[in-house]
C-alpha cells in the first residue's frame, strides 16, 4: 500500500450488509436489544434468505460507492429454507476469486454466519469487518475509474449457478 493521503486519513468506509430475514436480521435486532455497539458505517439490507444473494448486488454496491460488502446468513444447516445458504457460500467463494482476478482486495467482501441468538457476536463481526475495510482504504478515488465495468452480467451469472 502506498502511504496514506489526506483522503484516506479521515476515511469513513461505507459497508453494505446483506442479511437474511430469519437469522442474521434477527441477530441484528438482538444486537440492538442488547445495546451492543458497532460503527455506523454499515447499512443493512434485508432478503428473505442469503440464497437470494445475487453477485450483481455486490458488484453494483461496490461500483455504486460502497467500500466493502458484508454477507450474512444463518449458520450452515440452519437456513430457514433448508440449505440455501450453502448456495450463498458457493457464490461468495466464486465472487472473491473474481474480485482478486480484477485486481481488488477479496477482503472487501466478507461472509459471516450469525444465528438469531448471536446479536453481540454479529456486532463484533460488523466492527471487525468495518475496521478491516477501513484499513484497506477507499475503493474509489477521484482518479480511479472502477474497472468493474469490465464484468458483464453474463460473467456474473456464471458465478451464480
Amino acid at each position, binding site marked *: 500500500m502506498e502511504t496514506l493521503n489526506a483522503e484516506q486519513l479521515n476515511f469513513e468506509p461505507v459497508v453494505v450488509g446483506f442479511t437474511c430475514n430469519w437469522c442474521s436480521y434477527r441477530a*441484528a435486532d438482538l444486537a440492538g436489544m442488547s445495546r451492543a455497539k458497532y460503527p455506523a458505517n454499515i447499512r443493512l439490507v434485508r432478503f428473505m434468505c442469503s440464497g*437470494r444473494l445475487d453477485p450483481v*448486488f455486490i458488484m453494483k454496491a461496490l461500483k455504486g*460507492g460502497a467500500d466493502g460488502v458484508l454477507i450474512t446468513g444463518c449458520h450452515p444447516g440452519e437456513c430457514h429454507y*433448508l440449505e440455501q445458504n450453502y448456495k450463498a457460500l458457493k457464490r461468495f467463494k466464486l465472487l472473491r476469486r473474481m474480485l482478486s482476478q480484477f485486481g481488488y482486495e477479496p477482503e472487501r467482501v466478507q461472509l459471516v454466519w450469525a444465528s438469531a441468538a448471536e446479536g453481540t457476536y454479529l456486532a463484533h463481526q460488523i466492527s471487525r469487518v468495518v475496521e478491516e475495510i477501513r484499513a484497506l482504504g477507499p475503493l474509489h478515488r477521484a482518479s480511479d475509474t472502477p474497472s468493474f465495468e469490465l464484468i458483464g452480467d453474463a460473467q456474473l451469472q456464471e458465478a451464480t449457478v
Partner: protein
Amino acid sequence: MKQERIGVYVCHCGSNIAGTVDVGQLSSWAADALEKRGVVVARDYKFMCSSLGQELIKSDIVELSLTRVVVAACSPHLHEKTFRTACQQAGLNPYLMEMVSLREHVAWVHSDKALATQKAKALISGAVERVALHEPLDPISVPIEATTLVVGAGISGIQAALEIADAGQKVVLVEREPSIGGHMAQLDKTFPTLDCSACILTPKMVTVGSHPNINLLTWSEVEAVDGFVGQFTVTIRKKARYVREDVCTGCGICMEKCPSKLIDQVYEAGLGYRSAIYRPFPQAIPKYPVIDKANCIYFQRGKCKACQLFCPTTPNAIDFEQEDQILQLTVGNIILATGYDLFDARRIPQYGYGRLANVFSSLEFERLCNAAGPTEGKILLRDGVSQPESVGIIHCVGSRDRNYNNYCSAICCMQSLKFAHLVKERTGAKVTNFYIDIRTPYKDYDEFYQHVLQEKVEFVRGRVAEVTDAARRPGEEGKLIIQVEDTFIGKQRRIPVDMVILSAGIEPRHDSKEVSRKFGISCNGSGFFTELHPKLDPVATMSKGIFIAGCAQGPKDIPASVVQGAAAAARVLGTIQQKSLDLEPVLAQVIDQKCSGCRICSNLCPFNAIGFDLERQISTINPALCQGCGTCVSACPSHAISGTQFSTEQILAQLHGLLAESFNGNGARTQSPAFSQAELV
C-alpha cells in the same frame, strides 16, 4: 413512470430513537430532500405504533392520496404487521409499506448522534426508492379439502387418525403392512406402568377398523404426491391381497392349511413362523389375510391353492387373479407417522448377535415375553426349553456411539429396566444391566428405576467391549461372557451369563429419505424428519399442510408418540375449520417470455416448487409451494424469474437510495457514486 406519492413516518419511540437520532431533522430532511423522489409528506411522532400514530398515517393516506408508506421505527419483526394493517384499513395495499429499523439497527447500536442520523437518512432513502417499486399483493387463498391423509398406522398415526375422525372429518389411513398397529403391537408390557401393550392398543385398532370416517388402506403405499396444501393429489398403490375383503370372514383356516411356512422376520422379529397366506397376529386389523406372493407355492410353481380349497366361504374369498389397484385421492393435509426401524445389532460384530445363539435383540425379547408370542410368554433360551439362570442386558446398543448413531434413542434405558423387571419376575434369574448413564426423565420413570433397584438387579457402569463364548476361567464354560470395563472400580470384568439382551436403538426408517423426498419435506443427517421448529413447532414442516408425528420425527416413547399424533391432528383440524388458507404472497414468478427452458432453477428449489410446462417448454412456479427464499431468482441466467417483494429492481433501487445518501454531506468522500437509477432498468 407515474410518480408515487410517498409518506415517511419517523418514530421517536419515546427517547429510544429520539435520544440518538435527530428525528426532527430527519423528517424535515425527508420532506425536503426526498421530495423529488416522491415524498409528499414526512412526519415524526412520539409513538408511531400507538393508535394515534397509526391514525396519523391512515388519515394521510386518505387525505393526501398516498400510494406508498415508509415507517422508520423499530424492527419489522415487531411491527410490520401493525403498520401493514393500518395501511390496509385506510385502503392502501399492505405490501406498499416498507419499514426501516431505526431503533434496533441505528439508535440502540450507535452513540454518535450525527453519524446515526446520517445512517438513518441513508436507510430511509433506500426504503423510499425501494417502496416506489413495490407492487400491490393479495394473499393467495387456497381452499382446504377436508379429507386428511395419514401415512403409517403405528400408535402415533392411529392417534392422529382417530382424533380427526372423531372430530367428524374424513381420514384416509395408509399402512404398508397387512395390519395396523406398528411396533406397539409387538410389545409385551409397556413401561412404566407395565400395562399390557395389546390391551391398550387393540381397542384403538378396532375403533380405527370400524370408524365410519376412516378409509383404512392396509397393504398399501403412497406412490406419488402432487399439489400443495389444501389440494394434494396422492396416488396410492393398494397391493393385491389375493383375498376378497367383501367375502373373507377372517376365520383363518387358510393360514392353518397353507403348506408354505417361513420365519416371520417382521412381526415375530425372526423368532416365530408364519405361512405364505398370513395376517401378522390374531388381533390384526383388518382381519383379512394377505398372500405373500414371493413365498406362495401356487404363485411360484403354479400348483397348490390349498387356501382356496379349504376356504369355507361362497363365493370363495381367495382370488388369485386380483391385481394391484391404483387410487387417486385429493386430500387437504398430510400427516406422516412412519415410525422407526430397530438398529440392526449385527452391525456390532463383537456383540455376537446373529452368531451367538443366546444373544437376543430387544424386539426378540418382547416377543419371548409376550403370551401370544412363539414361547407363549416363557423366557427361554434359543433351544426353546431351558430357562436362563443369569441374564445380561446391554443398554445403548448402536446409540450414543460415534461409530453408529450419536444420538440417544430415548427409550432404551426404560426398556432395559422393564426387561430386567420382567426377567426377575418370571424367572428369578440373576440380572445385570450394563449402562453408560441411566436416563429416566418423565413422569413415574425414575420411580420405576428405584423399584427395579430394589428387586436386586445389578448395575455395571461401562460400555461393553465384547460378548464371547470363549471361556477362559472356571465357571465360564458354556456361558456367554460379557467383557466390560467397570468404570466405578476402574477394572476390566468378565461376567458370565446364559442370555444376553441387546437394547438396540431406534433408527429412522431405511427409506425415510426417499419418503421425505416424495412428500417434499426434509430429514436431519440421521434421517429423521425435520420439524418446522424444534421447540415451538414440533409437528409442522417447512412444507405447508404436511405434518409429522411419532418416531419418524425422532426417537420417543409411546406417550410422546401419542401426544404428537394428537398435536398433528389438532393442527390439521384447525386448517380444515378455516375452510381456506391465506398464503403469504411473497414468492417467485417465472416471466414466461424470458424463460429459455434451461431448467437450472428447478434443481435449486428446496420445496420442489418449480415444475416444467412441457408444451410451452418453460418452467413454472407453484405459488402454493414456493416459500419465497429467492434462490431461483438469483440463479436464473435469463433473468426470467422475478420475486414479488424481492425483485432485482427493488433491491437495486434500495441499494441506490442507500448509497446515494451515504455520500451526501459525508465530507470524507469525494467521489459520487457511478451508479445511477437509470442503470437499473
